[in-house]
């Protein structure tokens, strides 16, 4: 039984889970750091408890504090979302030991799949091909660097350095030549240590020209393990996905069946429970290789939800409560695309940006879904990941989904903070995207010197005119322009005075 869910996360995914709890009739608890006091997810929860501490390690990563809040509030389940503690086996174990239901797979399954070496061995035993790669176990910096150098000669170049216990592109470096290795290794280890508290890295051959294709799986305690088809997430910048879709444009029934079978075998090999994702690299010749398994809900889960009609988070809650999953025979219907709206300057090497969301007007209309943790008036700070929202569209065909995405991105208005909106919009016009022939190196290949927007002169003229009219007409006094509202409509206005004037 599950009746009250503590969400050990923040932002967009916390909102997604808290809304699912509300729909499922479950009580919910949010935990938040002080700098998240006014964030959207805090108000979506039935109860919210502030975590003490300043850093992420002292708040969203503080297992003891979060368990104490669960005990205080009587939460009988903890949903970790993604990132933070979601793939920490020790936390899953501590939650279970405290008599609380962990919304996710067993600590044992997290350990087996989270450890990239064990995952590879498990997959090889299940008959799934894996990419050449090696784990570096050494903790000591000098020993680790020496081991990395030795391993690199066996793995071969170009290679990829990845944080052993990570994801989201943090602690990840592509290395083309041996003389770049040491610098890249030092920096990858440092970033991994800061983000995950674990500096161990993993070396793997970089397969160019491949697609990143992943299979969503669901498993319950009633003996059912199924896959929900694939997602393609090849379009990445700095090893972070920005454009994801389902189904994969070049997928065949044969490859889908083979990949799906491999993913289900992977899940069953570790007695998997709940929602998980098995990632593969799909080579141009149709060969595929196991990359890793993510033992948690994935950022891009909505595209699968839209084409299968399955509410994956709701199924997670159902499975955690010991019920059988509710979905029956699955069918893939239409096409879904997700883009990630980041506060970043796409024209300056995707550098994160900060500022107020003075205006935040998402697109509306048929086939559009927006998953976000922010609203107009919020401040984008350097404290957390710069992802502001996920814009997801569904349409009967891939071509129509792309048309709908273009229209949606044109309608989306975000002022006050630099975002990648225009970059995402231009992506929709790239021939590889239109043809569906995207691969993981596309962005670097298309814009080797970095991306710059192409702005028609008359559009820039119109914008300059708008700014000049805005200044001349004093429009800044009519629009939201500062986070504290000091430039808002001149001070508090009594509604009675207004009534007085309008109805004398």
């Amino acid at each position, binding site marked *: 039984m599950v009746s009250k869910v503590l969400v050990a996360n923040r932002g967009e995914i916390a909102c997604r889970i808290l809304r699912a709890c509300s729909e499922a009739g479950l009580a919910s608890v949010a935990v938040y750091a002080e700098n998240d006091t006014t964030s959207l997810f805090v108000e979506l929860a039935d109860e919210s408890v502030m975590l003490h501490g300043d850093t992420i390690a002292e708040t969203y990563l503080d297992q003891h504090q979060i368990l104490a809040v669960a005990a205080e509030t009587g939460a009988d389940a903890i949903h970790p979302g993604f990132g933070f503690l979601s793939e920490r086996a020790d936390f899953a174990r501590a939650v279970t030991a405290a008599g609380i239901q962990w919304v996710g797979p067993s600590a044992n399954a997290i350990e087996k799949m989270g450890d990239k070496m064990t995952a590879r061995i498990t997959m090889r035993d299940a008959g799934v091909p894996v990419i050449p790669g090696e784990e570096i176990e050494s903790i000591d910096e000098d020993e680790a660097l020496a081991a990395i150098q030795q391993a690199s000669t066996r793995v071969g170049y170009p290679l990829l350095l990845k944080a052993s216990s990570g994801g989201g592109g*943090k602690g990840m470096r592509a290395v083309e030549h041996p003389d770049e290795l040491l610098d890249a290794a030092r920096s990858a280890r440092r970033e991994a240590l800061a983000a995950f508290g674990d500096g161990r890295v993993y070396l793997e051959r970089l397969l160019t020209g491949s697609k990143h294709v992943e299979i969503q799986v669901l498993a319950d305690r009633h003996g059912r393990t199924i896959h929900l088809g694939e997602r393609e997430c090849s379009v990445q910048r700095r090893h972070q996905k920005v454009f994801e879709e389902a189904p994969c444009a070049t997928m065949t029934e044969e490859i889908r069946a083979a990949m799906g079978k491999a993913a289900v075998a992977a899940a069953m090999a570790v007695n998997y429970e709940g929602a998980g994702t098995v990632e593969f690299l799909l080579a141009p010749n149709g060969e595929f290789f196991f990359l890793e398994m993510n033992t948690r809900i994935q950022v891009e889960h909505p595209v699968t939800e839209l084409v299968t009609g399955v509410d994956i988070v709701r199924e997670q809650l159902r499975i955690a409560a010991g019920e059988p999953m509710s979905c029956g025979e699955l069918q893939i219907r239409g096409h879904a695309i997700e883009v990630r709206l980041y506060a970043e300057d796409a024209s300056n090497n995707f550098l994160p940006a900060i500022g107020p969301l003075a205006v935040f007007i998402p697109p509306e209309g048929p086939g559009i879904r927006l998953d976000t943790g922010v609203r107009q008036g919020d401040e984008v700070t350097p404290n957390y990941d710069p992802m502001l929202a996920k814009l997801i569209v569904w349409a009967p065909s891939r071509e129509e989904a792309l048309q709908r995405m273009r229209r949606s991105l044109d309608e989306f208005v975000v002022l006050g903070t630099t975002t990648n909106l225009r970059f995402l919009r231009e992506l929709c016009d790239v021939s590889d995207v239109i043809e569906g022939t995207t691969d993981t190196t596309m962005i670097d290949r298309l814009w080797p010197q970095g991306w710059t927007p192409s702005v028609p002169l008359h559009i820039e003229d119109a*914008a300059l005119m708008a700014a000049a009219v*805005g200044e001349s007409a004093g*429009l*800044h006094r009519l629009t939201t322009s500062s986070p504290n509202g000091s430039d808002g409509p001149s001070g508090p206005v009594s509604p009675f005075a207004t009534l007085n004037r309008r109805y004398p």
Partner: protein
Amino acid sequence: MHHQFNSPDGPVDVTVTKQGDEWILGEHKAVRERDGRLKIHLANGESGFATVAKVADHWWVHFSGHTFNFERIEPGATQGGNDGGLTAPMPGKVLDVLVEVGQSVETGQTLMILEAMKMEHRILAAASGTVTDVYFSAGEQVQQGSALLAMTEHED
């Protein structure tokens, strides 16, 4: 009315005039809507709505799927000099300082490593030269725009 803005291509002078409800710039026209947006009629026959907001000295404009950010140059203000890019692009923490005062550096050499939003950013030398000052050490917090180092460029 005359205004000066900083655009990506440098300072731009914009003079708009008002005739009745219409604002005019050359052959382009704009009319203010009740909700604060502007209906724009371009000389080429295209039209659309612009959404604007002012944050500090910056005018943000959304028009036709494009977003712009123009800094308004206050009348009489002077422009800041170019500091060679040795300033913090983001608030964050200094992870590592790879050079010391007096050291010669090559173009593209990493001088300092910052961490912001859990990602690392390298501060690179824009030209070859000599480091004359280092203002922060590892572990220190920096504000956006803070000068991080100073260097003199070598003459080639």
